[in-house]
């Protein structure tokens, strides 16, 4: 039963990650699935024929053929009267095949049972008729005697739409059989690996239907238009009256409507037959075109491109559609964020120059004067505030990502001042710009110069720290082929790159510290003597353009945004974009975020454990907490307690971006404790729970709608209901808060 609930609720989570990864199915299980599915598709075909006969007989006025008394003798009733009993016969065949093939070997996924399949086959075939005729079939049908061409047009369109459904089933069954057996798969990394979950099976079937290798789907779809249109053109009754279910004035529009109805009916039936997580967008017209926003997809997009759904982002994505929303986020300069800017004004240090910071926040402040620690504190709180309240969600995530890539810890005296301008000048302006510009801005920054000691790096007294991390962490990676001598050569190029706090970006090139000799890097980059500051720039240009750098950068982005084991096809596509666009990070992000891997693969959703800096802002957003009353200092401390002290990651690589690091037993307990306190309205979260009827199920369902964008799994719902049933606490308000704590502690909220 839960499987059905899962599909109805459009929740990919449980399907993809609960018990769903079952692994390959045995030969017997495969035979069960293939056989019953084939029988069920015969029910679909038979019902389609019955529909056609009902329509034809009604048009000819042969009322007696519409039902066997006492069945009502109307066209609408005829659809399910099964006058000749042939549909029942096919259903019996399905049942007996189900008992024989599946009685002893229940498949681990993709199996709904004969009863569910039979019901879906009939319901969805009937729904195809209604999609064309509107709710009153008898009124819509044109008597053949009055308008022969109109009547024929109605039948042709319906009949050919039914044929398209049959064609989709034929091809889907072949794809399914192959996918289960691991034959000629087109998705996934191994074409010979049997699919191991419903989500994988769906991807394979959708891919096969989209590829339409033999072209028969396209052929059958085109037949709805031609030659079926002949009678439609000649019909005397207006098309809008012939097909009240379609708002269509032209033959072409009618055909489009019928094709969408057929494809939608097919996918709804497929979802029911095979218990597959078909998105609502696919189910309404068979095409992923954002005619329906799948809540699980909305939640996925908002939880990966930002800090989780909130009211504004949900409304925005509903208005713009998935692709429109992503494209807008990729152009943050077009998004109004003045409300956030006004709130950030409470932190004056954010806008100060290097020297202003030193003057305003002394290292040893007299009593009553704010000291150096204020700079870091304001930056930390501003980071939390931006995550919670900015409409430019992707820019915030990317700023976090690139800061972490070019990590600097605000642990020395200089860096306690310089960390804020570092993010403002070197990181944030470039996160959707060219990687080369980002690299250069970081190289010129006083914060990095101090963190990796390049400010000490001078001719004759080399300091290799920055040079090594520049190649190992910032660009090409440790296995990209550089040698220890290259570490020395790059260090020589960066001699004399130092801070000057009076310069706008804090940079000065000290020619007297620079090694003016010739350098050779990775055997290919020849730097002539006397290049001065240009030596370092040449190194930056060289490393930014390396394919090794492209791949490393792209993989890291994919790990953050899509999957911790990056899909190779997406890596290739994004690397190609990087190299073709001269390292344009906006183009790279567009490739990643509009990829089928990101948008169309439920298996990648809810696979990452939220980082603390994601969990805490997403909590405030899910609760709808009043942003003007947030306790940002407390939130900053909670992120720290969970292991991600902001701007304080001591190792140069920053914090790991892999779930294994964040799914630590100790911090999970701390997470649960924080979520419970927040649910009780502690820690400064101000919000109002929805009204409930006080029953366990009523409380849980109301809270699920309040906290989650996509419905939670049946398991989480049942656990929360059982929790409330067993809770002695009598106070209704406290019961709601405790139920919210359990829901927020579920995998649905801890994962993204």
């Amino acid at each position, binding site marked *: 039963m839960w499987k059905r609930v899962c599909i109805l609720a459009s929740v990919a989570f449980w399907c993809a*990650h*609960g*018990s769903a*990864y079952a692994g390959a199915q045995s030969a017997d299980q495969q035979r069960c699935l293939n056989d019953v599915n084939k029988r069920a598709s015969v029910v679909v075909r038979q019902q389609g024929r019955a529909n056609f006969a009902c329509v034809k007989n009604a048009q000819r006025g042969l009322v007696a053929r519409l039902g066997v008394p006492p069945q009502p003798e109307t066209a609408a009733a005829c659809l399910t009267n099964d006058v000749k009993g042939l549909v029942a016969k096919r259903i019996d065949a399905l049942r007996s095949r189900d008992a024989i093939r599946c009685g002893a070997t229940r498949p681990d996924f993709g199996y709904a049972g004969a009863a569910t399949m039979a019901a879906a086959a009939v319901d969805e075939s009937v729904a195809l008729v209604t999609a064309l005729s509107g709710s009153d079939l008898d009124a819509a049908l044109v008597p053949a005697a009055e308008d022969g061409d109109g009547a024929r047009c109605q039948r042709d369109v319906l009949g050919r739409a039914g044929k398209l459904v049959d064609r989709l089933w034929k091809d889907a069954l072949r794809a399914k059989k192959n996918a289960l057996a691991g034959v000629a798969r087109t998705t996934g990394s191994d074409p010979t690996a049997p699919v191991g979950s419903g989500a994988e099976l769906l991807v394979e079937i959708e891919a096969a239907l989209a590829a339409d290798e033999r072209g028969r789907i396209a052929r059958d779809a085109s037949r709805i238009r031609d030659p079926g249109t002949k009678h439609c053109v000649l019909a005397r009754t207006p098309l809008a009256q012939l097909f009240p279910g379609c708002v269509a004035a032209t033959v072409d529009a009618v055909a489009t409507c019928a094709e969408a109805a057929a494809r939608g009916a097919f996918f709804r039936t497929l979802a029911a037959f095979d218990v597959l997580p078909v998105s609502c967008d696919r189910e309404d017209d068979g095409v992923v075109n954002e005619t329906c926003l799948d809540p699980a997809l909305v939640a996925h997009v908002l939880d990966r491109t930002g800090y989780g759904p909130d009211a504004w982002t949900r409304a925005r994505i509903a208005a713009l559609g998935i692709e429109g929303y992503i494209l807008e986020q990729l152009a943050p300069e077009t998004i109004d964020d003045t409300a956030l800017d006004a709130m950030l004004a409470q932190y004056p240090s954010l806008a100060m120059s290097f020297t202003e910071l030193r003057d305003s926040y002394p290292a040893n402040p007299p009593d009553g004067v704010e000291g150096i620690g204020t700079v870091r504190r304001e930056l930390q709180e501003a980071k939390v505030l931006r995550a919670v309240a900015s409409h430019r969600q992707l820019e915030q995530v990317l700023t976090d990502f690139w800061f972490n890539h070019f990590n600097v810890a605000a642990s020395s005296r200089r860096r306690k001042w310089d960390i804020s301008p570092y993010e403002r000048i070197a990181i944030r302006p470039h996160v959707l710009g060219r990687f080369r510009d980002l690299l250069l801005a970081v190289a010129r920054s006083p914060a990095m110069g101090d963190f990796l*000691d390049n400010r*000490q790096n001078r001719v004759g*007294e*080399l*300091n*290799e*720290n920055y040079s*090594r991390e520049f190649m*190992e962490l910032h660009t090409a990676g*440790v*296995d990209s082929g550089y040698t*220890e001598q290259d*570490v020395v050569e790059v260090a020589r190029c960066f001699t004399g790159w130092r801070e000057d706090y009076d310069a706008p970006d804090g940079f000065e090139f000290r020619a007297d510290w620079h090694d003016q000799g010739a350098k050779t890097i990775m055997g290919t980059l020849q730097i002539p003597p006397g290049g001065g500051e240009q030596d370092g720039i040449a190194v930056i240009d060289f490393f930014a353009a390396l394919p090794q750098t492209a791949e490393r950068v792209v993989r890291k982005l994919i790990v953050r945004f899509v999957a911790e084991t990056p899909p190779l096809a997406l890596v290739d596509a994004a690397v190609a974009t990087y190299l073709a666009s001269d390292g344009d990070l906006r183009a790279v992000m567009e490739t990643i975020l509009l990829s089928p891997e990101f948008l169309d693969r439920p298996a990648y959703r809810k696979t990452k*454990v939220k980082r603390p800096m994601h969990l805490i802002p997403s909590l405030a957003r899910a609760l709808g907490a009043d942003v003007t009353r947030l306790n940002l200092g407390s939130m900053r401390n909670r992120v720290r*307690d*969970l*292991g991600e002290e902001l701007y304080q990651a*001591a*190792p*140069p*690589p920053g914090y790991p971006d892999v*779930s*294994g*690091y*964040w*799914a*630590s*037993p*100790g*911090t*999970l*307990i*701390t997470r*649960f*404790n924080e979520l*419970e*306190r927040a649910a*009780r309205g502690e820690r400064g979260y101000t919000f109002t729970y929805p009204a409930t009827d006080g029953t366990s199920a009523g409380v849980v369902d109301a809270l699920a709608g309040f906290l989650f964008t996509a419905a939670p799994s049946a*398991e*989480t719902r049942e*656990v*929360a209901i*059982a*929790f409330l049933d*067993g*809770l002695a*606490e009598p106070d209704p308000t*406290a019961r709601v*808060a*405790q139920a919210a*704590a*359990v829901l927020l*502690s579920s*995998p649905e909220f*801890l*994962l993204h």
Partner: protein
Amino acid sequence: MTMTRRQVLKSGAVGFTAFVLPAAVGRRAHAAGSNPVLVAVYQRGAADGLTICAPTFDPNYYALRPTIAVPPGSALPLGTTGFGLYPAFAPLLPLYESGALAFVHACGSPDPSRSHFDAQDFMERAAPGNKSITTGWLNRYLLQAGSGQPIQGLTLKKAKVKSMLGPAPSIAFSGIADFALGGNSQAERGAALVARYASLTGTLLGQAVTDAFGAVDLVAGVDTTTSAVYPAGELGPALRDAAALIKADIGIQVLCVDLGGWDHHSQQLAEMNVVGGELAAALAAFYADLGACQSSTLTLVMTEFGRRPSENGAAGSDHGHGGVMMALGGGIGGGRVILRDGAWPGLAPGNLFNGQDLQVTTDFRDVFAEALSVHMGTPLASLAPVFPGFTLEAGNFPGLFA
């Protein structure tokens, strides 16, 4: 390596303790009721062995480090070895003199990487140069000889260290005080979460939550009172909890803690005063606190590589090769600076690895293997999977227990 062993021997005027075959390789006797525990302390950032345990007898040391060598006058002599302890480490001197502490010098990885991250990975996976091995050495050890209960391996940090990563269950938490479900309806909420995640134990998150709740119950009753005085900071509080947990005997077999801040590219001695002082005070307090568990607990202090013998332009040192490992425990034969064959590899230009760094003459895996076989009592034959591609021979062990 241009210098022969005989030449090296000749170059060292002082007598060092040579490797000795341990008297008995196999399960060691421990005090009744105390099970052996291995504690791994990781010095993140590449600690400079030439400052911690300075070769004050070697004129090349002073030649290479005109401003940051430990002056002979201030170094605390380590017996008659000729090595001197950097004064910040003074709290360790009594332990050395009582035989509970040993240094293994010119120790490290055969892999030449000078990347912190690669070298740490190689060491924590006990697989130098091999990036296809991704599980930690302590995890593989627990697979061989662990109880199978998550508490068998504990990282006293917010996240597991890489040594501990792999299929064998283990847990991580930053402190005893934080490791309990708080708030209202604790029992009911705990039961609900256990139930919810029980069906997800095949997933990373489900397993971690399940392990966490199992360990919470064990840790709940641990007595944390102690009279030992630990320094504040990263290591002291962690070792205080480690001592309480070890004394409570709740099934911990291996335990990991970290101390960062060893990457001294500049102002090395000033930095060493801070971080070295913290390490020494914390270790001394920990050892005293262990009480009856001093002998059943072996602590290894390790780092990814040593630092370059020649100083850089910022009164610091860059990444090098051979370093120092420390062993602390009531069961070891300490009070020694252990060198392979008793020989100091030397810092003369011809003696340096790749012309610039201290050689590695003791592979870190031999220290690890001796700890597991002798202290933990695991037969050598079952340790092969812990050290893939490495030949284990008791005769190669440094002889911590000799």
